[in-house]
């Protein structure tokens, strides 16, 4: 009997001795197990993170605050809205989030009449699925890349901010502004460990109706993912290459060397 009681008190959770590897990744490694299942502590941490990500989808973008940040960096702004009236409609009707509402179209047409001179670059910021990402990183990202492009003598349209906007809405803005190159910054779908991830989409000669095959994407721009500096290097490389090849998307392969150089940490699974 006494032996049985002893066994009853054995800790059921088996810890994993490779917890130190967490310094290389935010992935949920070395969580341990009870039987084959997730220990209670890890289970509840997951549920809390899921709750936070669910909430992040529904937080609205503070447009004035973002516009102020962009203006402070020295760029004028235009505030636009997609055809999706609110978040609920945005989530259920992607087609509406890809197009500007009529008022926004008119706004851009009027702008164009007043500024008929040709413009090379248009940068659009859309809230997408994470206003937190846009609020936190879009102004800095816009400033970093536009500064580089200005230094090359490229003309730049005002920065457009689209509420309830999806990726393709950028092409419509670019077309209406008559821009040759379109850069779209968008809040990516929030992950459990990354509610603030910014995506960048680039289109050469944007127009309504283009598919993803005509766009290049840079993903996971956030402090714990790709830095703004690294994203800027990559984007500028893509822009240079697209102007040389006169295309973007599948025809434009990212063969820059920058992202390889980022790999400071080596694969420890193999002998030196």
């Amino acid at each position, binding site marked *: 009997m006494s032996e049985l009681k002893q066994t009853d008190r054995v800790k059921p959770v088996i810890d994993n001795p490779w917890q130190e590897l967490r310094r290389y990744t935010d992935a949920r490694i070395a969580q341990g197990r009870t039987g084959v299942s997730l220990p209670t502590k890890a289970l509840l941490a997951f549920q809390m993170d899921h709750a936070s990500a669910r909430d992040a989808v529904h937080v609205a973008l503070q447009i004035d605050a973002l516009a102020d940040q962009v203006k402070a960096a020295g760029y004028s702004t235009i505030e636009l809205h997609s055809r999706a009236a609110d978040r609920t409609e945005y989530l259920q009707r992607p087609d509406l989030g890809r197009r500007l509402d009529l008022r926004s179209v008119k706004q851009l047409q009027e702008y164009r009449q007043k500024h008929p001179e040709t413009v090379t670059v248009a940068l659009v910021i859309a809230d997408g699925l994470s206003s937190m990402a846009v609020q936190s990183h879009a102004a800095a990202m816009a400033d970093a890349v536009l500064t580089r492009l200005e230094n090359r003598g490229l003309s730049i349209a005002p920065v457009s901010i689209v509420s309830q906007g999806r990726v393709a809405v950028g092409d419509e803005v670019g077309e209406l502004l008559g821009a040759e190159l379109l850069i779209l910054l968008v809040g990516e779908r929030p992950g459990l460990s990354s509610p603030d991830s910014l995506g960048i989409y680039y289109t050469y000669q944007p127009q309504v109706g283009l598919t993803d095959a005509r766009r290049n994407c840079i993903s996971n721009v956030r402090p714990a993912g790709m830095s703004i500096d690294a994203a800027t290097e990559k984007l500028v490389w893509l822009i240079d290459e697209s102007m040389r090849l006169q295309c973007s998307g599948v025809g434009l392969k990212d063969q820059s060397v920058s992202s390889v150089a980022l790999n400071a940490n080596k694969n*420890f699974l193999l002998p030196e």
Partner: protein
Amino acid sequence: MTGYSATAGQQRWQFTDLKELLAKATPLRSGDCLAGLAASSARQRAAAQMALADLPLKTFLNEQVIPAETDEVSRLIVESHDLIAFAPVSHLTVGDFRNWLLSDQATSEILKQLSPGLTPEMVAAVSKLMRIQDLILVASKCRNETAFRNSLGGKGILSTRLQPNHPVDDQAGVAASILDGLMYGSGDAVIGINPATDNYAAVTELLKMLDDIIGHYGIPTQSCVLTHVTNQIEAINRGVPVDLVFQSIAGTQAANESFGINLAMLGEANQAARELKRGSVGNNVMYFETGQGSALSANAHHGVDQQTCEVRAYAVARHFDPLLVNTVVGFIGPEYLYDGKQIIRAGLEDHFCGKLLGLPMGCDICYTNHAEADQDDMDMLLTQMAVAGINFIMGIPGGDDIMLNYQTTSFHDALYIREVLGLRPAPEFDHWLQQIGITQPSGRLSNTMPATFSNLLKQC
């Protein structure tokens, strides 16, 4: 009179053409509502299912939902149809076909022989009449086995793709997730990375890294870096070690064009990878992912419902004898599959349809944070999929993909379902796990870390 009709009570329901009938008969999902194709009422849906049940299977050989003249997927479906294989069911209606599939006549062997005689639209049609238990029962009779460095899809085998994604493809970060997965017995279907970018040099580094790890530890599995097919062809041409060639595919030519691919490109990739002869027990070299809603998302659905479009993608897949095919069922978001209920049904439909068409079907049992779904929904789908005999699922640390920002099944999840249903990994991989000390002969995990791996921790 053209079209199709059904009468229920006093009311007569009319459907213009085959694609309208299929769309109206589809169980409710948000993507068909978005496309304006869904039934306008529950009664219209039930009536469409009745009309569909009365339709002879032969109808699908005479009426295309998308004309072959303008769509190369339709052409492939028409040209690859095997009339001799079709003969045993050629006299049946869709409704009788359901009865036949569920009957004792439809054994595993018979279903295997029938497969080339079925078109995607026939299979999609019958699935629309089926309940969850029908989808599970018939799928569980289908065994589609494939091989490369191990043997996948046998009875009692449930495999996993170890998915060690990292937001910036950091080698140590990727290695940490690989180690975690191997220690939990994951990775027999493939060790497959979604790279953070399509950057050619970065993709090459990852391919070499996976090849080195698999070689060094003698792991009987295969590697894949899920970049665009053209990148992988280029890698093969430059002598980079490529085991499996991956590509996302869809069920219409226009949707595939939106992915920047066509059938010729896939054929070129398949041939190039086969010629490398890197497999040891087989030479299935392609890995495809699909998912309901992709054609609509690319505005390339031609008025065909999303589930029928999805099954057409399986006709593309089977043309290339793939090692692995999986639907990424909950990834696309609530615009196409609104909640857990819709995701679960879609996942089981995809698995059933793929299996009946002869594919080695797996599933990325997953959801995003903007969908009305949670871990409970995934547990239900995982359990049902495993009962249905799914070939493989994903395995990721804690179920949280920190690069793609969605939740899929974890290493723990795979062990749960293996334990409950008495399933094992691919035999060659199972043997390796025991040899190296990760598992005991019973299949249970060892309680201590094998020295081969614990010694690594001292160095890093």
